[in-house]
């Protein structure tokens, strides 16, 4: 597709369960970013990939959060032992190349995660 896509659009799970959120970046974009947006707030950075490697994962809140991008395209954000505080919209963005000064990030529609 032409833009960044994310699946599922909504995910409801129970406390303690494991979830995976998927992001398909724009074709040809080497940089991919994950953000978390809590209600009434702006997005907060979680992790970004340059190609297959996580170039910066300093925003991941704890070791329950993990993300992969094995082939340098699709990425999966994985959350173990979910907690109610993990409820938020998880946004993915891609850009042509990280490190290029101010390269514009294009966002997907997000996945709304609700942990009951």
């Amino acid at each position, binding site marked *: 597709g032409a833009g960044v896509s994310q699946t599922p659009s909504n995910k409801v799970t129970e406390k303690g369960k494991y979830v995976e959120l998927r992001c398909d970046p724009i074709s040809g974009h080497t940089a991919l970013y994950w953000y978390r947006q809590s209600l009434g707030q702006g997005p907060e950075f979680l992790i970004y990939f340059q190609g297959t490697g996580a170039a*910066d994962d300093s925003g991941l809140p704890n070791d329950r959060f993990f993300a992969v991008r094995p082939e340098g395209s699709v990425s999966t954000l994985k959350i173990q032992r979910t907690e109610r505080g993990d409820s938020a919209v998880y946004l993915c963005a891609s850009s042509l190349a990280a490190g290029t000064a101010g390269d*514009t990030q294009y*966002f997907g529609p997000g996945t709304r995660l609700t942990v009951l």
Partner: protein
Amino acid sequence: AQTVTQSQPEMSVQEAETVTLSCTYDTSENNYYLFWYKQPPSRQMILVIRQEAYKQQNATENRFSVNFQKAAKSFSLKISDSQLGDTAMYFCALWNNNDMRFGAGTRLTVKP
């Protein structure tokens, strides 16, 4: 640390009028980029306009323009001839060295 502050949680404007959204930021860097993103109820963040800090000229995109005051670390967004479709959350963002920080957003409502 980089921070972005949007001091107006909500604003409204009449259709066809002009509105200005405020944004201030703090960074110790000299080279950085500033963005305004729009987020409608569909949740998708849409780039409205961007400004390179090294450029003195204010960026303009059709009805959208910015007032970039580097010394004051201010980056306001002016929307002219407001349209109903402009109703959305607007986020100011600061980018430096792959670190993107967003403000808390301003909810803009355009009234008919």
